[in-house]
């Protein structure tokens, strides 16, 4: 019994032809017997055959039904066995292959939608969703300070404050601090390299719950002041500089001129802080550092069961008591914590989620298109379905078959989409903004594959179920009677119209958002940064302390540092192709840091309430090199940069606006860092914190008054940047063989990089919106074409009754335009609410920007109505005679 069924099924599957032949033979036998019967009743042989066939009915349909039944076992007791599924897939596959055009359109539409979603999700997964590579990473928090008096919200900690929090808190089970110096790495055989260091306190690795992948962590004595200099390498530096050679453990390198032993290498996924190349013990004690110096990052681990709110309440209490105990330094200072994940990715979360939402909407629009195509296709197969149902095929079988077909389509689309996403991954990675945190995590992995699969199945069910249910519910007998020319019922047509309207509305929402982002970006690019970026090349230099002593007692006379800088500028200026050269501790678009100051002759302010100003130490040629105009007074000149020069500064417009509203700034004196300096000039505002932030008050002292060992060299040149860079490298090497250059760039590139996140969001959003508009245009085109096809007869009647061609044209266009305008109106209405989520990404544009809304409406109206014109024109070409003859 079992064997017999198995054989039958196998034969049906492997050799359908022999099954077909048997069915044919059986039916032929029947017809011949019946014909013989009629002959016996006296009919002529020819009439007998005809009568037999007439009696049998639709031979071909019976044959097809038998063929299907001999392959598909109808579900018994509702069990869907593998073989049934295989048979359904086979049937679906055949029917899809039979209509390659339909299949190609559907699969490629879905591939685009699912591929775009997969690519976007790989970014969201890698950046936002993947847990940080630390033990129980949701317990980790970053601690910050704020300053009510100056209105800052996120400042680094001071070392004494860190120790106070460590000793007094009741909510954290571990606390560590770190700071991130740039370090020059020198080895015997290779060029010196500037690396990102992280000096970390004793408990750092314990708090994070990580250990080196190779070698060991720091020993207790190495964490104390005066302990042996040791370092742990990042996996990146280990690979790039040491070729992944495990024997580096125990080898000595020079860091800032100090012979340091490599004791360990971290795992590739451990990157905290993100760009760190090498970790060193901080070797501090509880008496290190001053309370007024806010230079360290603090990371903590919450105790089990302690919420972030409780951590923050506890920190607030500690901060309040510190305010009282250390009034001079801590007045107005608060403390707060945020989860480590938020600290890393909160800034990009809104734009990434928005993009994912946008691309999901694109997929939804694609689904609507596919659903409409499937409904149209189902309609043309309605008769077949009706007959099969009349012959006893259960409706569940029909529904299942439509679903299987839809799933086959969506999975094919998903597979192709995944392939596209995978192939496009390099392109995507290249287009990610350099500032995107955790970008190294982005890629196609198990989670992304799962997402893609779920999305494919969900879309298949979504667009497959609609036509399937409608078909199985609909009055099949009625459609059997209606015959080939059955027109769409008005309810059905309305459903399709609603779908297309929603589709257009969705597209309009996306296009409005994209329009606002584009307008923001254009506004941002029109912002005058305050300097001329063209033809300026910049490179960062860090002088190691061992050869360039930073003696506190002799400040600001750091002879070695000053000599190097002087020689560097002289050599750079005399290099052919370089028009001017300057030094600065922070170039433009670099926020730099702030310092307290006092203007002479103004009422005394308590030490804790002094204002802070951005201090931007420069060499005199800085303004000329960057094309920053002097508005009043004079620029700094070489005479101001000698050791014995009287201290002078230049201030920016924002400084004058804030502190010299009705007073004369030139000649005024202000003290800062123990020096009293005279204001000799006012320069134009330059943007420090990205293009979107207005300049803050800033002062420009010279290096002679405030020497620094880390600075940028900026040169104005008309030559190729790379050639200039090679020359600068040669100059520094001639001055100091062991000096590392880093951060080579042009100011134009830096300007572009500062808007790269916005550019990324805008480009992707624009692409998604364009895709959505294209899809919805195809959608309305499809619906109108279909409706025109179905209404040929009606148009024929109208025209034979005297309607002119342009009447028919108007008829169709009115129908189409009504859908389009309804969709656009609905879309604009929704956009008014949805753009709320866009608010944080906009710059200089209201989220209700009437121009954007108007342009988008016009664009959408033009495109969609144009899409209706083609079917409308086709309607006018209906030949009344032909149309009526079909009746």
């Amino acid at each position, binding site marked *: *019994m079992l064997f*017999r*069924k198995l054989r039958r099924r196998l034969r049906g599957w492997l050799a359908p032809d022999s099954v077909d032949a*048997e069915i044919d*033979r*059986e*039916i032929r*036998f*029947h017809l*011949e*017997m*019946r014909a013989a019967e009629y002959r016996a009743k006296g009919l002529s042989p020819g009439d007998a055959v005809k009568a037999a066939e007439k*009696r*049998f*009915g*639709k031979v071909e*349909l*019976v044959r097809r*039904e*038998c063929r299907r*039944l*001999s392959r*598909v*076992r*109808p579900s*018994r007791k509702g069990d869907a066995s593998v073989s049934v599924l295989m048979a359904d897939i086979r049937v679906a596959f055949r029917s899809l292959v039979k209509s390659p055009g339909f299949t190609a359109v559907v699969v490629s539409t879905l591939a685009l939608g699912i591929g775009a979603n997969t690519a976007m999700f790989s970014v969201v997964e890698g950046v936002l969703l993947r847990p940080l590579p630390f033990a129980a990473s949701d317990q980790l928090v970053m601690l910050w300070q704020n300053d009510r008096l100056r209105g800052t919200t996120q400042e680094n900690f001071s070392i004494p404050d860190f120790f106070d929090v460590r000793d007094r808190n009741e909510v954290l089970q571990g606390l560590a601090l770190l700071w991130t110096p740039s370090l020059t790495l020198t080895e015997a055989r290779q060029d010196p390299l500037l690396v990102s260091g992280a000096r970390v306190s004793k408990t750092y690795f314990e708090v994070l719950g990580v250990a080196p992948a190779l070698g060991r962590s720091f020993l207790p004595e190495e964490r104390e002041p005066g302990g042996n200099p040791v370092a742990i390498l990042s996996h990146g530096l280990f690979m790039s500089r040491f070729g992944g050679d495990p024997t580096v453990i125990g080898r000595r390198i020079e860091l800032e001129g100090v012979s340091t032993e490599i004791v360990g290498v971290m795992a590739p996924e451990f990157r905290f802080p993100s760009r760190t190349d090498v970790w060193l013990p901080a070797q501090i004690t509880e008496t290190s550092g001053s309370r007024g110096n806010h230079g360290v990052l603090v990371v903590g681990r919450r105790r089990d069961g302690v919420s972030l709110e409780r951590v923050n309440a506890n920190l607030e209490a500690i901060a309040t008591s510190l305010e009282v105990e250390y009034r001079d330094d801590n007045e107005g200072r608060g403390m707060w914590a945020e989860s480590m994940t938020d600290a890393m990715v909160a800034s990009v979360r809104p734009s990434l989620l928005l993009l994912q939402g946008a691309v999901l909407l694109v997929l939804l629009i694609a689904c609507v298109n596919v659903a409409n195509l499937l409904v149209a296709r189902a309609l043309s197969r309605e008769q077949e379905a009706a007959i099969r149902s009349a*012959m*006893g095929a259960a409706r569940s079988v029909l529904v299942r078959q439509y679903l299987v077909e839809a799933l086959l389509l969506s999975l094919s689309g998903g597979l192709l989409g995944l392939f596209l996403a995978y192939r496009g991954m390099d392109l995507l990675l290249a287009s990610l903004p350099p500032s995107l945190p955790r970008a190294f995590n982005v890629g196609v992995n198990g989670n992304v594959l799962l997402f893609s699969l779920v999305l494919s199945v969900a879309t298949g069910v979504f667009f497959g179920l609609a036509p399937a249910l409608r078909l199985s519910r609909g009055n099949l007998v009625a459609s059997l009677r209606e015959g080939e020319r059955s027109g769409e019922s008005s309810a059905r047509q309305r459903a399709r119209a609603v779908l297309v309207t929603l589709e257009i509305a969705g597209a309009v929402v996306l296009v409005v958002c994209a329009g606002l982002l584009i307008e923001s970006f254009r506004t941002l690019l029109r912002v005058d940064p305050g300097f001329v970026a063209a033809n300026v090349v910049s490179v960062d230099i860090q002088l190691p302390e061992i050869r360039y002593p930073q003696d506190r007692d002799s400040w600001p006379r750091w002879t070695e540092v000053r000599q190097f800088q002087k020689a560097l500028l002289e050599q750079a200026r005399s290099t052919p192709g370089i028009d001017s050269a300057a030094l600065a501790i922070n170039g433009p678009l670099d926020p730099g840091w702030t310092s307290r100051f006092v203007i002479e002759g103004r009422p005394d302010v308590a030490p804790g309430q002094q204002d802070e100003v951005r201090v931007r130490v420069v060499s005199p040629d800085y303004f000329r090199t960057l094309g920053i105009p002097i508005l009043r007074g004079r620029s700094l000149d070489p005479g101001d940069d000698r050791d014995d020069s009287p201290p002078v500064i230049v201030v920016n417009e924002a400084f004058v606006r804030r502190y010299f509203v009705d007073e004369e700034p030139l000649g005024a004196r202000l003290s800062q860092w123990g020096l009293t300096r005279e204001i000799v000039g006012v320069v134009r505002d330059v943007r420090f914190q990205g293009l979107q932030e207005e300049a803050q008050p800033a002062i420009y002292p010279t290096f002679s008054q405030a020497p620094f060992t880390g600075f940028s060299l900026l040169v104005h040149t008309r030559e190729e940047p790379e050639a200039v860079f090679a020359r600068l490298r040669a100059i520094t090497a001639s001055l100091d063989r062991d000096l590392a250059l880093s951060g080579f760039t042009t100011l134009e590139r830096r300007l572009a990089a500062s808007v790269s996140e916005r550019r990324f969001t805008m480009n992707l959003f624009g692409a998604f919106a364009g895709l959505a508009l294209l899809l919805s245009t195809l959608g309305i085109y499809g619906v109108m074409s279909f409706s025109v096809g179905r209404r040929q007869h009606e148009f024929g009647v109208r025209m034979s009754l005297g309607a002119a061609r342009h009447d028919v044209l108007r008829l169709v266009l009115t129908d189409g335009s009504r859908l389009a305008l309804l969709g656009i109106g609905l879309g604009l209405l929704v956009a008014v609410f949805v753009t709320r989520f866009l608010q944080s990404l906009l710059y200089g544009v209201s989220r209700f920007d009437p121009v954007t809304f108007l342009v988008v409406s016009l664009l959408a109206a033009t495109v969609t109505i144009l899409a209706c014109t083609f079917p409308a024109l086709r309607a006018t070409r209906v030949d009344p005679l032909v149309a009526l003859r079909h009746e």
Partner: protein
Amino acid sequence: MTKTKSELLHGTLELLVLRILESEAMNGYGIGRRIEDLTGDALSVDEGSLYPALYRMEERGWLASSWRVTENKRRAKFYRLTSAGRRRLGSERSNWSEFAAAVKKILESA
């Protein structure tokens, strides 16, 4: 098919086929003829439904088929009841009796 003949009630075709095959194996044509003979042509068989019904019942395991030579030396596909088919016939038969009794009750009470 002539309108004067009553059409088969939905679902009764299977019962009739099972009943006819209870006594002997038969081919599709023979089954159709037998239904007409037994009912004195009162019931017509829609041949378009007969064959799909046979295939469906075979798939369900109620019937088994084999090719044999008929009395007049023609090859035809013969169907016979399986044991599952026999059980099915039993249950269908009692269902039908209950149904008929119920209808009869209604008709007599009216």
